[in-house]
């Protein structure tokens, strides 16, 4: 006789113990019940069907995985039943609805294969990737304080994924690490693009080149326009901008215009410097850089600056003798693409701004971004996170995501779209195919829905219920 288990995660408005005896007779099954109040009763699987009842919020896949692991259920045979659908009716209606749905669950076809929830604990060792010896050492020291051994080889070395862990290949040995800490570096950026014609006037110059010139020559009665298109410009640079602009205005009577998205005045004496700079006659204008157009003047001795101010939406044009490009900074993880051996090409890895992801992670499990030394306070919380990750048990479901070898045409769509980079190419011969690494797969189904050959299947991940109309 087939066995069924009904497990409820919270109190539900049906008298299940009372229902079981007549249900066993009606469906001719053994039904084991596990309710919050009698959790100690031993469950004796394997079960043909498991119904997990609970609030819908707790019925997500990760939670169900946990339940499966705890009670040794086969995840392919677990059905999640939301209790919210039951509350609005009378007790007899509720029972009727529940029995209908129970019938539906029982009548569903057998999955035909078995699944398993496996738990993992990543190797307690961290690979550190940082640009300088000093920084590597600082991170290693801090990890050691947390009781985590680390590895910080100097290049040449490379690493590759091995399930959820990473294999580090150095010249004379190989080691497996559970996590990788990648230092974040600041990369200079200047996102406003200036046309070649304007650049050819030679009056568009970089901030670094412009600074020494201020001391060397006079800009008497000329117009200098500073472009600051980035949001993240360190306070030190703003301080220099204020100083230079003020010097130009006071010494040479230069007309100085600073075009930016935001002026940063949070810093030592910055507010005062900003005020003094404005008092010296320097103009600050917040603009949307999309509206900004630079064109060379006919004599190629300067540029026309065309823009719309954010303040009043007025458009104006002015003639600039000099245009200075002030770069900002973009925080990115140290580039590791050249030492990371993977089938997927990584152009740039940036941290997704997503509230559902833990901070400091990249879209690869086990890769952590450690803020640069300028933000020391954050660094320890990032490393704390690494430590927590290494302690945690990771649950993965085996046997759910599969690629049909016969159908895969190796178009690489899935490889490129998987948000967790869980797919690689299998096989050495010409007859290769895509393979899903079940340790890394989060069972989201993005690959399944993108595959043009319908080659990917996810077993039993959808549930369907009829809701009775009120």
């Amino acid at each position, binding site marked *: 006789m087939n066995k069924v288990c009904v497990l409820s995660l919270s109190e539900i408005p049906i008298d299940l113990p009372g229902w079981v005896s007549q249900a066993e007779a009606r469906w001719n099954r053994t039904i084991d019940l596990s309710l919050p109040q009698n959790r100690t009763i031993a469950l004796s699987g394997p079960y043909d069907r498991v119904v997990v009842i609970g609030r*819908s919020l707790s019925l997500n896949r990760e939670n169900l995985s946990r339940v499966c692991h705890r009670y040794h259920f086969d995840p392919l045979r677990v059905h999640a039943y939301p209790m919210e659908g039951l509350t609005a009716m009378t007790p007899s209606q509720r029972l009727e609805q529940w029995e209908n749905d129970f019938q539906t669950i029982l009548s569903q076809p057998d999955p035909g294969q078995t699944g398993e929830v496996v738990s993992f604990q990543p190797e307690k060792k961290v690979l550190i990737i940082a640009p300088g010896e000093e920084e590597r050492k600082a991170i290693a020291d801090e990890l050691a304080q947390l009781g985590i051994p680390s590895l910080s080889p100097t290049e040449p070395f490379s690493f590759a994924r091995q399930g959820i862990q990473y294999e580090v290949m150095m010249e004379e040995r190989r080691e497996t690490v559970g996590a990788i800490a990648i230092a974040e570096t600041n990369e200079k950026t200047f996102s406003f693009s200036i046309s070649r014609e304007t650049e050819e006037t030679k009056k568009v110059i970089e901030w670094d080149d412009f600074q020494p010139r201020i001391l060397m020559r006079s800009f008497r009665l000329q117009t200098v326009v500073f472009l600051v298109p980035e949001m993240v410009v360190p306070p030190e640079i703003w301080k220099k901008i204020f100083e230079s602009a003020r010097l130009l205005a006071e010494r040479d009577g230069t007309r100085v215009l600073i075009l930016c998205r935001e002026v940063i005045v949070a810093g030592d004496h910055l507010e005062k410097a900003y005020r003094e700079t404005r008092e010296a006659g320097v103009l600050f204008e917040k603009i949307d850089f999309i509206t900004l157009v630079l064109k060379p003047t006919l004599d190629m001795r300067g540029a026309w600056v065309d823009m719309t101010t954010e303040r009043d939406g007025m458009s104006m044009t002015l003639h600039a003798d000099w245009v200075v490009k002030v770069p900002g900074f973009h925080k990115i993880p140290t580039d590791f693409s050249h030492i990371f051996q993977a089938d997927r090409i990584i152009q740039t890895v940036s941290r997704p701004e997503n509230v559902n992801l833990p901070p400091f992670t990249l879209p690869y499990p086990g890769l952590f971004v450690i803020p640069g030394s300028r933000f020391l306070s954050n660094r320890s919380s990032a490393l704390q996170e690494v430590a927590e990750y290494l302690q945690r048990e990771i649950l993965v479901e085996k046997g759910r995501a599969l690629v049909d070898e016969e159908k895969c045409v190796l178009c690489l769509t899935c490889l490129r779209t998987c*948000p967790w980079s869980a797919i690689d190419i299998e096989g050495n011969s010409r007859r290769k195919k895509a393979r899903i690494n079940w340790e890394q797969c989060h069972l*989201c189904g*993005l690959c399944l*829905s*993108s595959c043009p050959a319908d080659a990917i299947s996810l077993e039993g991940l959808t549930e369907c219920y009829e809701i009775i109309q009120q």
Partner: protein
Amino acid sequence: MKLYVIACDKSGYPALMKGIETGEGTDSVLTVQKIPCLGLVKESLLLETLEKEYDGILLVGCPLDSCYNLDGSRFAERRVHRVNALLQEAGIEKKVFLAFVTAEKTGELQRVLMLARSAFNKEESPT
């Protein structure tokens, strides 16, 4: 109006269930399918569902920038646009709607349901 609802188990499903529990504007909900992520929905699933007697499909999932699987909602949005364009091109009066909700904020769900209702009522009345 017969609506088929596909909801992701992170936000859409709890939000929908909350709506059903409190009885707010869900009178037209008929069949609910729970899936792990809206990114799993492919165009053929939508179209094959519309082959049945449903007037429309409603997808409910996480907001674009907080999708648990990073790109899932974005994929769903593009696919919904594509399917709606196909349906429109073919002159079929069925439609797919999309609501981005979180488990707590269900207001958007009601807004989209209302939109769906008015879309179908308009089409039904003159002919």
